[in-house]
């Protein structure tokens, strides 16, 4: 019993011909966690996910789902739900039929209740008799999500699930996902190009660049470790103060700017500066975002 982690990727390398799309990548997902795999186009995110769902064979290394090697044990398939990046068409079949067949493929019978629950939660109920080509782009993506959930998986792989989904639905999608997380103990691997979304949702993040996992860590720690927190004090017009403090950077017109550590109490700084409260017009604090981290770590790569 080495572990029962939902996902363990160990030294995974994937070559297409001589091109290394994934280069010795290792990471894991803890139970109940949302792990974000971020990186520019072509970084290798989809290639990693494809090896997890056995669409691709790893060139080297292995992938384990709840302790089972995905290539040796069929069991992992029951625990995996997969939302591919690319839309899947289903020809002549309706949304409801597609979900019924898909349940059947997992050996689930009489799944109507679950199917209707998913249709309802994903806002597809009124579209259940439509064919895929009659759905809008966002609806197609939600159908993919419904398909991935018919068999109550324990690990959900989401490859850009919100591309082309409008804000409102994105939010309802994520609140649905957190509901599933609570009720069904779902763990999630997510790739997305919406960094704000990743910052809000992901417990941990891995940054991928040219096939290599260059940084991994809890989202908050990454942001705090890689970015700075700036505080600007806007003075009332006509106030003249001199300021010298370790955290002080510059004074421009009436604005004093400080760069302070994330844990440092703002009040303490104010006390040190000998500024009087009545001299202060406004205080602005700008914290770093995942965006900043991404730019730093991946190095200006285009998202």
């Amino acid at each position, binding site marked *: 019993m080495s572990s029962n982690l939902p996902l363990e990727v160990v030294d995974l390398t994937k070559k297409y011909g001589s091109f290394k799309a994934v280069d010795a990548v290792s990471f894991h997902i803890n139970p109940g966690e949302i792990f974000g795999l971020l990186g520019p186009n072509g970084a290798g995110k989809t290639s990693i996910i494809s090896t997890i*769902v*056995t*669409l*691709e064979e790893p060139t080297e290394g292995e992938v384990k789902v709840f302790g089972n090697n995905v290539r040796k044990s*069929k069991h992992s*398939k*029951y625990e*995996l739900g*997969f939302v*591919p990046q*690319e*839309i*899947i*068409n*289903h*020809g*002549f*079949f309706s949304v409801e*039929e597609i979900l*019924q*067949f*898909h*349940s*059947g*493929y*997992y*050996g*689930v*019978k009489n799944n109507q209740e679950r199917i209707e629950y998913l249709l309802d939660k994903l806002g597809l109920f009124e579209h259940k008799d439509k064919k895929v080509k009659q759905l809008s782009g966002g609806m197609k993506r939600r159908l993919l999500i419904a*398909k991935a959930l018919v068999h109550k998986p324990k690990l959900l792989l989401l490859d850009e699930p919100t591309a082309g989904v409008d804000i409102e639905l994105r939010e309802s999608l994520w609140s649905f996902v957190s509901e599933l997380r609570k009720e069904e103990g779902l763990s999630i691997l997510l790739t997305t190009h919406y960094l704000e979304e990743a910052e809000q949702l992901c417990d941990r993040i891995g940054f991928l660049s040219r096939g290599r996992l260059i940084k991994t860590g809890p989202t908050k720690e990454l942001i705090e470790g890689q970015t700075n927190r700036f505080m600007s004090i806007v003075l009332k017009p006509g106030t003249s103060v001199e300021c010298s403090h370790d955290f002080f950077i510059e004074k421009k017109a009436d604005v004093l700017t400080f760069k302070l550590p994330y844990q440092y109490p703002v009040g303490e700084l104010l006390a040190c500066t000998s500024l009087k409260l009545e001299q202060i017009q406004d205080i602005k604090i700008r914290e770093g975002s995942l965006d900043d981290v991404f730019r730093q770590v991946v190095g200006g790569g285009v998202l």
Partner: protein
Amino acid sequence: MNAELRFRPFFSLTRREIKRFLKVIVQTIVAPLINSSLYLLIFGVSLGRNIDLQSGQNYLVFLLPGLIMMGCLNNSFANTSSSIVGSKFAGELEDYKVVTLNPWQILLALSTGGVMRGLMVGFLTLLVGEGFIYYEVGHFVMPENPLILLYFLFVGGLCFASLGVSVAFWAKNFDQMSAVGSFVILPLIYLGGVFYSIDTLPPFWRSVSEFNPILYFINGVRYGFIGESDVPILTATILSVVMLSIFFSISFFVLKKSNFKRW
């Protein structure tokens, strides 16, 4: 693993396959039926009046079982191959790999779907053919050995359905797919004795024909229908089992090696 988990995936995919061709019944059943009706009309009724068979059999009666089998084989092959090629285009084939279907379940389910369409076309051709026969001969011709007829239709259909599976999984593009259809399947069927008895061929071509596996299927069906065959029925039966195992082994192998990628 309980029975539910073992059989439900298979039944689900089989149902999907059958529903798929029923949704486009005009293309999948009606069109092939019109096709065989035209053959019946042109060769059976029109030209057939001038053809005297050695056996003294009416040519239309001789032709019908050949056409029934041709329809069955063609459509079993067409069903699996077009279903798979369609799924490759749609990306749906990736689903088969991701879900808990195993290669045997996929192969058997797709083949069952294919043979169902083959049998439907075969059976409807039989009905239409009987109409022509009644009109030409004045009475219906009952199959001599209905069980043998059904056996060869079923096994032949299964073979071609599974052949469709392997060709469609193997094909890298649409051209390869249609090349197999027009350069291999079609000639083999036409030269397999649908329209003539190989006894009428010169000895050399007769011997060549004996290497055509389809000859045995067609003559099996003909034996079931009129009790006559160019080849010993026992040989045909044994060969049908051998071919079934070969076709299924190849398909299984191709499926196992295949990457299910979209085109």
